[in-house]
């Protein structure tokens, strides 16, 4: 079977690129790590890929604000190729720092062209925190979360993950359009308070998608839960049939096959 091609975009400070590539590989795709300089110089063309993945890390040190400098670079220097990629009906995923980049470039929630509508700011605890969280996945148009329909368990690790919008109207808009596709919750799915909501995000939002459901970003790290040994209970006790994180990658790859 031919495999969808994934462009894992990396730059100075990207650091979850290898495990993201591994996760896509497990899910049946062919992933390639591509430095942003190579893309900007034309050494690789975004057109040749089916999925663009923005992995976690600290792009450019998260200087100014998390993801800001790479978001600016995408918006100013790679705008055309990204626009062409999206309008060709292809997929984009941003994880952690990648999510911050998608939000700060305006690609998410993506209701206004390249204009930032929401933000991810410093956690209410004012510090970086790494912990495992439970996540609710409501029904939505998002192709990445399709059919999961249960509470999943993934690690978060970030200092700037508090999702916020400029005003309640814009938040309402995201919720009404069912773009808030991953939310922090308790183990039983009920509404979360700190630390179950690890950063103070509005409406417990952990991840959102654009109106098409093809562009998706989230703070938690699905690529860190694609093997049972990664689970805090080592696959013992509360064992699920398949590690939760891999479901997201498989969804993306399944959809991308249609683009082959």
């Amino acid at each position, binding site marked *: 079977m031919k495999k969808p091609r994934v462009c894992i975009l*990396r730059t*100075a*400070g*990207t*650091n*979850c690129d*290898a*495990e993201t590539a*591994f996760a896509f590989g497990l899910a049946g795709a062919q992933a390639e790590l591509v*430095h942003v*300089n*190579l893309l900007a110089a034309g050494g690789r063309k975004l057109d040749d890929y089916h999925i663009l993945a923005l992995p*976690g*890390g*600290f792009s*450019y*040190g*998260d*200087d*100014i*604000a998390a993801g*800001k*400098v790479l978001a*600016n*670079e995408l918006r*100013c*220097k790679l705008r055309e190729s990204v626009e062409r990629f999206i309008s060709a009906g292809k997929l984009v995923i941003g994880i952690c720092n990648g999510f911050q980049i998608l939000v*700060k470039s305006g690609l998410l929630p993506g209701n206004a062209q390249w204009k*930032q*509508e*929401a*933000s991810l*700011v*410093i956690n*209410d*605890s*004012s*510090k*970086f*925190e*790494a*912990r*495992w969280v439970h996540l609710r996945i409501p029904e939505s148009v998002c192709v990445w979360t399709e059919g999961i329909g249960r509470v999943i368990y993934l*690690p978060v*690790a970030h200092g700037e993950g508090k999702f*916020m*919008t*400029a005003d309640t109207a814009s938040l309402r808009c995201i919720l009404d359009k069912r773009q808030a596709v991953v939310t922090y919750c308790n183990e039983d799915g009920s509404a979360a308070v700190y630390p179950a909501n690890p950063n*103070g995000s509005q409406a417990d939002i952990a991840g959102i998608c654009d109106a098409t459901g093809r562009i998706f970003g989230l703070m938690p*790290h699905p*690529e*860190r839960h*694609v*093997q049972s*040994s*990664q689970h*805090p209970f*080592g*696959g013992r*006790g509360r064992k699920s049939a398949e590690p939760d994180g891999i479901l997201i990658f498989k969804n993306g790859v399944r959809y991308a096959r249609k683009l082959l």
Partner: protein
Amino acid sequence: MIYRIEVLDKPGLFDAVGEGIVRDIADLGISGVSEVRYTQVYLIEGEVTRADAGRICRELLADPISQDYLLCDAAFYEPEQPAGGFSVEVAYNPGVMDPVEESVKKGILDLGIKGAACVKTARKYRINGNISVSQADSIAEKLLYNKLIQHIVRRGASSSHPPSEYNFRLSRVRIIGASDAELRRLSFQGQLFLNLDEMRTIKAYFAGIGRDPTDCELETIAQTWSEHCSHKTFRGRIKYSETLPRSYKGRIGSRMIKGLLKSTIMKVTRELRKPWCVSVFEDNSGIIKFEGRNNVCFKVETHNHPSALEPFGGANTGIGGVIRDCLGTGLGAKPVFNTDVFCFGLPDYSFKDLPAGTLHPKRVMKGVVSGVRDYGNKMGIPTVNGAVLFDEGFTCNPLVYCGTAGIIPQDKCFKKAGKGDLIVVAGGRTGRDGIHGATFSSGELTEESETVSSGAVQIGNPIEEKKLVDTLMQARDRGLYSSVTDCGAGGLSSAVGEMGAELGAKVELEKVPLKYSGLSYSEIWISESQERMVLAVDGRKADELIALFAAENVEAAVIGEFTGSGRLELFYRGNLVADLDMKFMHDGRPDIEKKAVFKLPAHKETAKPCPSDLGSALKKILSSYDVCSKEWIIRQYDHEVQGGSAGKPLTGVACDGPADAAVVRPLMSSRKAVIVSNGINFRFGRIDPYWMAASCIDEGLRQVVACGGPVDRTALLDNFCWGNPDKPDRLGGLVRASYGCYYAAKAYGLPFISGKDSLYNEYMYAGKSRAIPGTLLISAVSVLDDVSKTVSMYAKEAGDLIYVVGLTRDEMGGSLYYEQNGLTGSSVPMIYPAQAMKIFSALNRLAAAGALRSVHDCSEGGLGVSAAEMAFSGGLGMEISLADAVYKCADKKRRRNDFILFSESNSRFIVEISPDKKRVFERELKGLSFSLIGTLEEHGQLIVRGLDGRVCLREDIAGLKEAWQKPLRW
């Protein structure tokens, strides 16, 4: 034109940074602060229009959702002093690297705006509330800035000073005719930290060649011969004498020791000849075999002196440095995890009693943790294991141990620079920062250290190093260089000097890329600027290598070549500034002989009567800073990045229990795992460093065993942090600790593969020098074949059986229980290797067979702490009986519930077994010390029955957990 831009959170939004500072101010004991607002300040200098400056603010610097900005001409800015509060603005000192500047410049260029020549940043804090000027000053000084690297901006625009040009002038130091007194002064004033004998040897060398040395030559020799680089204490001669009772276990006897390291630590490895040891004590880290095509390397470093002066920067560059050790091992290893172990003064120490020139322990701790967090997280290396210990003795000299392990292909483990190879320096640029780090850390700290040695303090740039890792690994795999080493202490001087020790090297110093002009040739040569590596490159491959680096914005430059002349020749713009014989540099140092004495201290062993209820004693130990939960620290580290985390540092049903060791699966495609743990206990060293060392090895090993790690695939690293070795009593302890290492490691069959020492951890004030408690960190690393065989420490199921494995002895000396009763004692825990080895092996076999539900090792706080931690981490109750535990004690009066519960005897575990595994378990341990002491229960209480069968402890596990979590829940 300079624009001043202030970016701050919109009114009404929660200011997380400000809130954090409000809490810290309260910790200082200053009340009355109602709010702190944080503002980020940017100064942009250059040919930029007002309209473009506005765009830079809107599109790059201010977050449109959460922030507002203020743009003005810096020339017209006047700092306001608001009514009802203070405004404090902090900026970096000239020459201190600020990575944000580069990112802002890049962002502006990406916007299509050219002409921004220079960017500076500052932080402004507006402190609202009713406080005095002196309180505001105190807040600024204690929390907001460190004068070694930052300053308070007093006036409006701080224009960037144009860097001064450097005018070459060769400087010679008159040494040939110098008297002894002059030699001493020369060493002291030049911060060379060389003794008279060494200065005389240098004088003789230069007299022999008929000229005085250049400043650069003298600096080079001082660095090469520094304690930090040449480890003269461990390699020199030691005249050792001990006074111990004839029957004392662990006598080594007075003797002349020719090379302490060779006679103890390295001797173990040599004698054990483990076939899986690949490279030991010869490279920047030790290498052992891992799986088919890959090996694992591991190194632990210390960064104590810099962390004492600037905790964030010191820890930051400490972790950065040990990562480069990994990169500079063989032809380069990929870092896969970090470890960190700290020793601090007490966090609640009174400000009043703090010696002059010392930062408060809480500030040191917060700074160090932030420094590790910043560097480790940004590098994408999980920080998986550590420990934190507290004692008043670390108030002036905190200890910061940083470790890094890497994965390296089998065929990349060795390197050799060839004659004619070019010398390439890659990574960060060279600046004036970090001058004299190597020599500075080879002396004691004093009140003046903060002014005299401030140049030795730096801030790291993890992203620069991350780029270096990314590109270096590609260059390694393409075979583009023949040798590599890191630029650490001693800078180029040390890196080129070591790499070219056999061949000789010629360097043209003006070719080294600089951060700014104005550096003299000597400064370029000895600067310890971070994030640099030195490579030996075949001339035909140099262009490809430099292009590979450039493709990812890493700067690299050819600065010289390895000549084959056996000489170190340095040029600056065509002028010869140093010409030294490599042989003299590396072998010319006079052998030193130091004196060491050891006398057994007399500590009383008279305990108060045993309390009838041990609940409060247990809670007090759980609440001690050493034992209590370190969750506040651990959560700030990304311990999951790279996806290899299998045994997490926090474990249990609520993911908050204390794991014994970390289990990492560094290659996602392999089921093999690396287990890493640490053993450290300075309290035992107050009685006898020999048994402290043996106990540390036992602790490191038993934590590995608790997680299922095989004894016969475990290797060790040693890190000694000690006081001034020129003082015989300090050195006597160090000798005993080294011999204790030999005894335990040899008996357990554990080779040392690498190590490091940091001596001179003393602080001179009020005319008296205070040494740290001599502290040894043992790091253990083991290879487990199948990650699914990992065993964890938290209670799993009610009804399961609880065993104690290993013999509890009357060894209360140095225990936390004694300490809390104001005692040190003399009955220090010893090791009994024959019995212990059988226990470890049996547990290994049981783990491999999947027969162990959970295992937790007994360390500080003994059985009591271990049982409590196992119970509350698993959310289950536990009932145990002390009468059933095997306890060995000669004195009947010392058969006491408290001693059995809190003795810190080595080689012991609490083990949970499901009832159906009872027979298998007992058969495997037959003939060894173990006993069934109780069961796990649903009721949520820890119940301990004493020797008389009556309950001597009954506590809710929730209350025990709260006692354990509360102290460091910051």
